[in-house]
């Protein structure tokens, strides 16, 4: 048969591509991942997937420790990272570690050192050190301060009181100089940028309090305020540490995901050699090989080969696009059937990505102008407290109290107020983010929760958002035995559609000796019968394929034939997420307006909209169209939540009031989204909205509480009735109240409409959020 001959000729002609197609790992260049310590020992970090319990940790560490040259292997269970150090003499062998982990059943990817997460970790450490110093100082100073307060009403001699004041000064002055640095630096940074941030009144308050306390101690006064200054720093640092710990955790997790998504490219050298390199090493002009089933790693021009690309992540269009030499390809497109050689182009000119990035920048600038609660609180608070302090000072001077007493009361106003306010919002954010994290939602942005709370309109993208990102088998008539054999053949294929057959048939083993002919399909000879899986032409199944397409115009068809028997055609299409209908119904029940804005064809969008009961939908939209629709909604007073994953959604995600992406989304979209969700379920859309509303309510409660507290405490301070004892009680009491209220955000974040079957498994209680 001519078909067989063609297939064999193709395989022979592309023998080198064939080897590249099937060989699982190439000579990877791992030097970028290894960091060498000053003593000469090498160290590398890996993101590990599949670590679920303590036994995994033990298996990995025990499995790697006896390897030659490995000095230590330690798995960090909190962020699922494995750190391996080699002995000084040993040559670091990253592939051996990866192979050993694979043997143990874990997927891992090495990490380039010096990522953003490392910087976040260093910042967390710095803040915790400052917190420890402030904590130590405030505890010990309190010991002395309480003695003075008690002594003032009993029989303490003035000499002893002065001694105690000076000991406090010796403890507090260096401690405040060290622990207050995050605030001093923030205040200076803000002033340089011409803004008065929350850090400014804090710095002013602390510095003035310390100066006044030293002056008071010099004059042998009955009160000094060292304890107040250091306690203020202690409480404010708790807020900062919580905030930072939340950000570090999401950042580390996002970096793990990025590494595990295998952001790599196969570089084709001038000598024809292939090398696997991290994406960051790709320079414009480099030639890369994109094998069937891989995503195109960078924008470029096709030099060699033909294939069909699934551009759904780029344009939202589900139908495959044929490409050949000279065509442009975009990062994120999924290569279908043939190997392509692509020359990477610099992101310049009128490429789609540039256009998207330009739109996104503009949209992000517009978004940053929206004020969040914390900003608004600062805007109200800073002038209020400065004016209060100034009024107190002038008022007491006018009343003839002398500059000394006037300044003392003014400083009391500055220092008694910001405490609860500094904790009011971060405490809620960190608790709510921790609760969402355990439900599989990662917050990209601290302001995300408030934004989710205000949403009243939800806009979905179709492809990859309402539908699952990977294709699934849908309907069709075929014998179960055919599906089983086809699935076993499909295991040997890298074509993205073959995954649908594998998933549909359940666990199976591949046929030994199965060969993949790129562009055509897979074949294997079993018991003297030739089995084929692939295109209609390859299997001689044009009639069956045409019938299947006629039955379901949305589907792509993959064919199977055993020997000369009757061929079978499997229709494969992108299925809806399992709970999409319930989530849409749940949103409608909550009174949200639901729309679909898609880049795909009208027919497929209409089909999805009808199945989900969404009345408002638009198809065939460009990124500009999507932005325009969302801006029109915002102008009409709606607060839009955009849920999307494609490159073409990125500007819309940036333009919307709030945005959410699945983790399978394109890079740019992930960066633009306020939060990412894991898994096949769409339920996180409901849970983030519920969590946002709850968090916002708690934040407002906390802010009101702080306001009431300030209204009571500031007049007390201004009138000079605020003794250090009352200040200490008020400060710690208000901070505790605000934190305790914030802990309520940990309670159930899931609303009622979602049935239990789709709820993520109940998280194990985890103490702390760091």
């Amino acid at each position, binding site marked *: 048969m001519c078909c067989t001959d063609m297939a064999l000729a193709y395989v022979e002609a592309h023998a080198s591509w064939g080897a590249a197609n099937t060989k699982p790992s190439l000579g990877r260049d791992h030097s970028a991942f290894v960091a060498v310590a000053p003593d000469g020992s090498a160290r590398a970090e890996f993101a590990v997937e599949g670590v679920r*319990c303590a036994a995994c940790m033990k298996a990995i560490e025990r499995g790697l420790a006896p390897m030659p040259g490995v000095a230590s292997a330690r798995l960090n269970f909190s962020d699922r990272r494995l750190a391996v150090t080699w002995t000084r003499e040993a040559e670091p062998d990253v592939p051996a570690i990866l192979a050993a982990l694979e043997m143990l059943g874990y997927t891992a990817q090495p990490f380039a050192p010096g990522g953003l997460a490392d910087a976040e970790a260093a910042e967390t450490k710095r803040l915790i050190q400052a917190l420890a110093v402030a904590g*130590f100082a405030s505890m010990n100073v309190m010991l*002395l301060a309480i003695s003075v307060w008690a002594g003032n009403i009993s029989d303490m001699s003035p000499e002893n009181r002065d001694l105690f004041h000076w000991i406090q000064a010796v403890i507090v002055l260096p401690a405040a100089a060290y622990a207050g640095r995050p605030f001093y630096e923030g205040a200076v940074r803000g002033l340089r940028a011409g803004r008065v941030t929350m850090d400014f009144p804090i710095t002013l308050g602390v510095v003035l309090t310390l100066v006044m306390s030293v002056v008071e101690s010099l004059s042998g006064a009955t009160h000094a305020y060292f304890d107040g200054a250091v306690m203020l720093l202690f409480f404010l640092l708790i807020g900062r540490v919580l905030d930072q710990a939340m950000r570090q955790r999401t950042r580390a997790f996002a970096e793990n995901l990025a590494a595990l998504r295998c952001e790599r490219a196969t570089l084709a050298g001038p000598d024809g050699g292939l090398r696997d390199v991290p994406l960051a090493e790709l320079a414009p002009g480099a030639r890369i090989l994109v094998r069937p089933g891989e995503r195109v790693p960078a924008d470029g021009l096709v030099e060699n080969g033909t294939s069909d690309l699934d551009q759904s992540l780029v344009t939202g269009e589900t139908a495959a696009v044929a490409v050949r030499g000279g065509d442009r390809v975009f990062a994120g497109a999924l290569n279908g059937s043939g190997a392509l050689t692509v020359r990477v182009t610099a992101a310049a000119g009128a490429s789609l990505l540039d256009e998207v990035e330009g739109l996104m920048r503009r949209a992000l600038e517009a978004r940053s102008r929206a004020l969040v609660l914390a900003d608004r609180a600062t805007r109200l608070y800073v002038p209020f407290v400065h004016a209060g302090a100034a009024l107190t000072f002038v008022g007491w001077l006018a009343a003839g109290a002398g500059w000394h007493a006037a300044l003392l009361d003014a400083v009391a106003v500055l220092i008694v107020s910001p405490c609860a306010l500094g904790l009011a919002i971060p405490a809620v954010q960190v608790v709510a983010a921790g609760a969402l994290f355990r439900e599989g939602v990662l917050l990209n942005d601290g302001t995300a929760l408030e934004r989710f709370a205000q949403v009243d309109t939800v806009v979905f993208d179709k492809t990859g958002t309402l539908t699952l990102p990977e294709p699934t088998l849908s309907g069709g008539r075929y014998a179960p035995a055919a599906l089983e054999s086809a699935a076993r053949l499909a295991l040997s294929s890298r074509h993205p559609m073959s995954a649908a057959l594998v998933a549909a048939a359940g666990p199976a083993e591949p046929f030994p000796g199965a060969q993949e002919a790129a562009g055509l399909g897979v074949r294997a000879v079993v018991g003297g019968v030739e089995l084929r899986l692939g295109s209609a032409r390859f299997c001689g199944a044009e009639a069956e394929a045409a019938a299947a397409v006629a039955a379901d115009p949305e589907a792509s068809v993959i064919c199977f034939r055993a020997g000369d028997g009757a061929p079978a055609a499997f229709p494969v299409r992108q299925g809806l997420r399992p709970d999409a209908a319930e989530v849409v119904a749940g949103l409608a029940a909550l009174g949200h307006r639901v729309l679909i804005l898609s880049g795909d064809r009208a027919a497929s969008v209409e089909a999805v909209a009808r199945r989900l009961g969404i009345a408002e939908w638009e198809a065939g939209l460009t990124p500009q169209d999507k932005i325009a629709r969302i801006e029109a909604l915002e102008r009409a007073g709606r607060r839009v939540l955009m849920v999307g994953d494609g490159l073409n959604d990125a500007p819309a995600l940036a333009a919307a009031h709030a945005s959410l992406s699945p983790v399978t989304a394109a890079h740019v979209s992930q960066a633009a989204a306020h939060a990412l969700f894991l898994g096949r379920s769409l339920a996180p859309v409901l849970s983030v909205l519920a969590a946002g509303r709850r968090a916002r309510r708690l934040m407002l409660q906390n802010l009101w509480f702080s306001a009431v507290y300030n209204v009571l405490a500031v007049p007390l301070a201004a009138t000079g009735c605020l003794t250090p004892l009352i200040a200490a009680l008020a400060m710690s009491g208000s901070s505790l109240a605000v934190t305790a209220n914030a802990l309520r955000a940990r309670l159930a974040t899931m609303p009622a409409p979602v049935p239990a079957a789709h709820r993520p498994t109940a998280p194990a209680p*985890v103490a702390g959020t760091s």
Partner: protein
Amino acid sequence: MNVLLLVIPIALGLGLLGLLAFLWALRSGQYDDLEGAEYRVLHDD
């Protein structure tokens, strides 16, 4: 009164010892993996 000169340095010294111990533990990475630590106790090695 003399007892104060003895007791206060002792109290501060003990507190400082605690602070230094915490900073040492933080620097040597003992707080890097709080979740793993609770399981590591159970490993018999």
